[in-house]
């Protein structure tokens, strides 16, 4: 009897869910008619939890800056020249992927937003991609580094991948190391540590391949768990390995700790390359001129006036400088969206098509996506005289030659 009634209850719940989902999609259809006074843009972002640190630097400030600037100019311009202000609906995903999924479903079916901006992080963008696709929203995935971008762009036709894949970065690094080795600056041995999580796993997998292809020896290769705070044992082992190059595919807290602990241990590799966090404003603020020569992913062409002007605006409005890697790309993706809406209106299908095929004038200059991916990126940078300048790919205009070997840490 109990079983029977439970089954009935389950059926009732299933029915209710189906009804609600149906009602939701009906609402989506209904919303396009009638006069509108605003454009609803929604997003779920990690304001709390483990991802809040990264989201709070690369993603959220740029959303805020963009909305502020667009609304300051009277709103988003429509094809007929009229302007509609942006109305923001924001959810905190608490750094939990199931919350991202729930929030995006809610944005699409209950809040009926016109566009959804993507969450922060590779994993979350992958988790959200099927939803964006199912509800028919374009996804401008910026803070997602994945080698599978071409595959994803094919699977989800309205998804756009803006930050390249692991191989792009590791091949750029391998090129630099090969050049330096041939010039006699460094030996051919590399010590690598990587965090045992999305970013670290992707990058180390790509790096093993890239280094092998380039004939570089991996003499020390270990992974460490998320949340590791003491890197002294790894630094000691890396120093003992005799490698001239030390690479860490690390998350921000690890990067900060590594920087301090390498100084304490007086560990002076000739090439010091670390992961996320090197381009954060707080990194430069805390370490002063000791960061000179440290390398990482990303970089900025400081002769590009539009980018430098964007950095100044960001610093003024947010109260902190943007990072030197993903921030400007995030802002660029929003400018592309703005322009696509101006050309095609609020029809998501048309906007996605425009993003895919159109050419845009943004902070990065003239941008055109190739196969739904942004390929004109900087894959390697180095701190030089207080700026994190782009050094790779070296054949792209605006690239600066890396200064190697890195000078030893200043005496303490």
């Amino acid at each position, binding site marked *: 009897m109990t079983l029977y009634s439970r089954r009935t209850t389950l059926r009732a719940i299933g029915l209710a869910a189906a009804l609600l989902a149906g009602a939701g999609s009906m609402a989506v259809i209904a919303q396009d008619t009638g006069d509108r006074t605003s454009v609803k843009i929604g997003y779920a972002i990690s304001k709390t939890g483990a991802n809040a*640190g990264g989201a709070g630097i690369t993603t959220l400030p740029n959303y805020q800056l963009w909305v502020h600037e667009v609304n300051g100019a009277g709103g988003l311009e429509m094809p007929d020249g009229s302007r509609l202000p942006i109305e923001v609906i924001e959810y905190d995903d608490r750094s939990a992927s199931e919350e991202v999924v729930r929030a995006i479903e809610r944005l699409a079916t209950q809040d009926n937003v016109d566009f959804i901006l993507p969450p922060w992080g590779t994993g979350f963008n992958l988790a959200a991609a099927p939803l964006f696709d199912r509800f028919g929203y374009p996804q401008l995935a910026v803070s997602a580094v994945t080698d599978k971008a071409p595959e994803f762009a094919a699977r989800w036709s309205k998804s756009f991948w803006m930050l390249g894949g692991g191989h792009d970065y590791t091949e750029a690094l391998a090129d630099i190391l090969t050049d330096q080795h041939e010039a006699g600056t460094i030996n051919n041995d590399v010590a690598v540590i990587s965090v*045992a999580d999305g970013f670290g796993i992707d990058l180390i997998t790509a790096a093993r391949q890239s280094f092998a292809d380039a004939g570089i020896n991996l003499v020390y290769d*270990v*992974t*460490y768990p998320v*949340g590791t*705070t*003491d890197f002294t044992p790894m630094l000691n082992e890396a120093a003992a390995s005799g490698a001239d190059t030390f690479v860490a595919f690390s998350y921000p807290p690890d990067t900060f700790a590594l920087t301090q602990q390498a100084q304490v241990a007086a560990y002076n590799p000739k090439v010091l390359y670390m992961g996320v966090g090197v381009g954060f404003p707080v990194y430069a603020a805390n370490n002063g001129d000791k960061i000179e020569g440290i390398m990482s992913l990303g970089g900025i062409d400081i002769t590009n006036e539009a980018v430098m002007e964007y950095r100044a605006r960001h610093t003024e409005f947010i109260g902190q400088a943007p990072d030197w890697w993903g921030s400007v790309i995030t802002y660029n993706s929003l400018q592309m969206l703005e322009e696509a809406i101006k050309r095609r209106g609020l029809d998501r299908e048309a906007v996605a098509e425009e993003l895919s095929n159109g050419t845009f004038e943004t902070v990065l200059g003239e941008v055109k996506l190739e196969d739904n991916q942004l390929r004109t990126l900087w894959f390697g940078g180095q701190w030089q005289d207080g700026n994190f300048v782009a050094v790779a790919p070296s054949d792209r205009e605006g690239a600066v030659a890396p200064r190697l070997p890195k000078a030893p840490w200043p005496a303490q």
Partner: protein
Amino acid sequence: MITTLITGLVLGGTYALVAMGLTLQYGISRIMNLAYGEILIFAAFAAFLLFSTLGINPILGLAIVLPLAFAFGYLIYGVMMQPLVARSKKSGTLEVDSILATFGLLFVIQGVMLVVFGSNYTSYNFLNTGINVLGTNIAANRLLAFALAVIIGATLFYVLTRTRWGTTIRAIAVNPDAAPLVGIDVNRTARFAFALGTMLAASGGVMISMYQTFNASMGVVFTMKALVIVIMGGLGNLMGALVAGLLLGIVETLVATHVDPGLTLAATYLLFLGVLLWKPSGLFGKAAGR
């Protein structure tokens, strides 16, 4: 080998420092404080703020942060815990009630920090200079944290086992029902122990802020680590927390050096499991410290 041992000991010093406050709160006041890590992070932010805006160095900052933390703990116990303690006399569910109450407190403190300090990673450089200890370079700030852990641990252990006042505290830890029979004000003593635990959490936070990157959502990491150490060392036993913390530090460093850094977490919990199987009440449970 000596390098590994020294690095491990210093790492363990941090763990022990973080765990000692919790062992006081849980072991003596019987409050399982899930907001412990948040208090610690709050103190870290306070130290950062004092250092970056007023230029007060974190060691002097302790003189400001610690009394405030003590007052905060005293207040929280009075406002939040006292009613629970009073109620539990009948129902005997203080542990569960305190877990639920402090779980709420966790989010309140975290929310306040997110509003006030934002969600960004925070860190600053202080005393990040190498000091040579038996041929190993150790960061001065970590060494300081280790020294502080040993001093606090040893002092409080001495006070608890050798003074009349300490005996009072241990009395309510061992048998809160019988303590009033010999004229002990259980409520006042438990409140004092809770405030003292809060103060220790704050001292851990200030020390950690010197060498570790933190953000407003990281508190739970410290609560978990502290909990493992507290249970491993024996509830309410300061010496236990100290030894368990140091042991954990050494094991993690040994594993990171000689086995694989990826297995440090596994080693931590393996050790935890081993201790619990061998001595279910913890290394120093019941017998030695109480």
